[in-house]
């Protein structure tokens, strides 16, 4: 006799449908405010001529045309590629350090933390330390070079070596970072697999190559992501160690952007934004690759 009770309120009816969006909303809001909207704004500004104070003037692609004709841009691009290539050395170096430290001897925790130390200290401090290390006259490195070859080389004042010098400074903390990623990976190795491999007489290099490394793949992937992104946004070290010098030869895109848009000698917001957009596009290539891979992995599960 009794009718079904009136369906409850709107919320009860659609709870299952709405709930995911409610959970999604805060994240989406933050992501929009701090990531998406600024990206759109940057792209918008890159089409303008703007000093940050006066009125904006729409100049279309003029900033990009100018960028293509700017020698500094190509220097920065070349240096970014160098960074990208050489920075990846942090991954094998980090792996080597992790394998070396992955043993049980007395005091290993202390050694591990000492290896990890460079990642804990600020990039600014790393930059200053290496600046003094390379400094002509009193720097340890130039003293060593002097002792070995008889003549001094001022790494940070020589356009041939300056970028390599900064990358070496950057590799120090980055190696430590990769090492930590691999150390955690090594903790989670499947010991049964390794035992089985040992029974099959696998040892040394072959054990590493065919049994350990595949298990470390997730760590390698993360190490790859942070290293590539770290290389592309290399800014602190360049800023501290050389400020892009000597005469712009250690320039990278992120510092170039800062210099054009925000430094004492800049305030060309449109031009800086155009550089930022180019850097963003380069990063997008890698980010897309990583995301595609991650989605593929999710599907395989």
């Amino acid at each position, binding site marked *: 006799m009794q009718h079904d009770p009136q369906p409850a309120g709107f919320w009860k009816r659609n709870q299952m449908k709405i709930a995911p969006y409610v959970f999604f909303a805060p994240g989406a809001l933050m992501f929009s405010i701090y990531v998406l909207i600024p990206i759109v704004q940057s792209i918008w500004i890159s089409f303008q001529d703007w000093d940050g*104070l006066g009125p904006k003037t729409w100049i279309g692609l003029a900033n990009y045309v*100018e960028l293509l004709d700017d020698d500094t841009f190509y220097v920065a691009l070349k240096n970014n590629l160098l960074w990208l290539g050489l920075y990846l050395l942090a991954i094998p170096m980090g792996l080597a350090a992790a394998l070396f430290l992955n043993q049980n001897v007395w005091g290993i925790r202390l050694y591990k933390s000492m290896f990890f130390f460079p990642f804990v200290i600020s990039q600014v401090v790393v930059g200053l330390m290496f600046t003094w290390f390379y400094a002509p006259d009193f720097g340890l490195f130039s003293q060593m070079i002097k002792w070995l070859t008889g003549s001094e080389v*001022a790494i940070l*004042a020589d356009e041939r070596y300056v970028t390599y010098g900064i990358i070496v400074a950057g590799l120090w903390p980055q190696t430590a970072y990769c090492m930590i990623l691999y150390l955690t990976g090594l903790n989670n190795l499947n010991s049964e697999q390794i035992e089985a491999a040992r029974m099959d007489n696998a040892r040394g290099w072959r054990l590493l190559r065919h049994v350990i490394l595949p298990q470390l793949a997730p760590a390698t992937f993360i190490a790859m992501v942070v290293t590539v992104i770290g290389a592309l946004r290399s800014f602190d070290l360049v800023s501290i160690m050389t400020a892009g*010098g000597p*005469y*712009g030869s250690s320039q990278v895109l992120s510092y170039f952007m800062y210099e054009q848009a925000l430094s*004492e*000698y800049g305030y060309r917001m449109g031009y800086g934004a155009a550089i930022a957009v180019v850097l963003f596009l380069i990063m997008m290539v890698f980010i897309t690759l990583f995301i595609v891979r991650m989605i593929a992995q999710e599907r395989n599960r």
Partner: protein
Amino acid sequence: MTLTKALTGLALSAFLMGSAAFAGEITINSDHSDPTPKKAMEELIADFQVKHPDITVKWNNFDHEGYKAAIRNFLTADPPDVAAWYAGNRMEPFVKAGLFEDVSDVWAANGLDDQLKSAASSMTIDGKKWGVPYTYYQWGIYYRKDLFEQNGITPPKNWAELLAACEKLNAAGIVPFAIGTKALWPTAGWFDYLDLRVNGYEFHMELTSGKVPYTDPRVKAVFEKWAELVKPGYFIANHAAIDWQDAIPQIVQGKAAMYLMGNFAVATMKDGGLSEDQIGFMQFPEITAGIPMSEDAPTDTFHIPAGAKNKEDAKTFLAYLASPEAQAKMNTTLGQLPVNNQAAKPTDTFLEAGFTMLSNAHALAQFYDRDAPAEMAKAGMEGFQEFMVKPDDLDRILERLEKTRAKVYK
């Protein structure tokens, strides 16, 4: 409940802050963060309060480097009544954007056109005065007196004598000139002086305001003189790796003999252990005979933002700042030179030398990175640094600078 309370409090304080800007109070924003400038500023404000007890001064002191970014924000968002800045092209963007107030009336009412004459041209844009200068300092060659005496050198008066002195020092195993070009601007001191001496002030101003191409033979002539010092190795090696202070030890240790610098270098040399009678100061020697001597003298200034709430009292403050007494006292503390030519002469040996030199100067340049627009200055100084490392690449460097010039002065 607590939230309401907090909000009420906030609204109340906002109301108080808003209404606090009544006549009789001025807000000053400045970047006197280092101990000495801070002391000079505190004294200035205290003395002003004694003289004008009806005006209360509220002073916001900013970090020196951070100020350059901060001023761009507060001029538009929350303008104070008085703001510190620099003369010449450095103030031009703010003047052109309508953010600084025309203070020609303060100049006229207080006879400043006469008293601040040496800095008048660098405070003028479009025929109006946009602020009041209160301090500057001289540039010149600081040298080791004792090393000069040991090698039988008298301070050179012209280019040939300078080259001869360099040769003597070099033969004695002393590098003639110390310099550190990592921060780029020390190179600009050299370019300024060579251009002022080879081509003169008027040409230098035409160049820095973009009217002459960098590929002009007259610009090239400047670099040819420079090359006469660079090519024989008369500057210390590896200068691109060090800052200007890092080159001071070479002077102190007697490895280098001369330093083209601002007067602030004297304090650093003394800190390094040199006594006053070991340091000498000389005007940059003559190059082209007959060209009147002009000098670099970067000037610090105060301005009234266009959005200031209490312009009347702000003008009273600027007038006080311009007075001979205020400038004399402030610059004694700062260890720099008063701009007002009625102010009491400084007693320090180097400042006195600078005061005489600047008073007799044909004209004062503000320094390359203040005379030229920021973007040109940056490219220019990078070019100077590259030239000092690779003097043979001059043509390529000048072509690059010309490209930048064409871009900057549209």
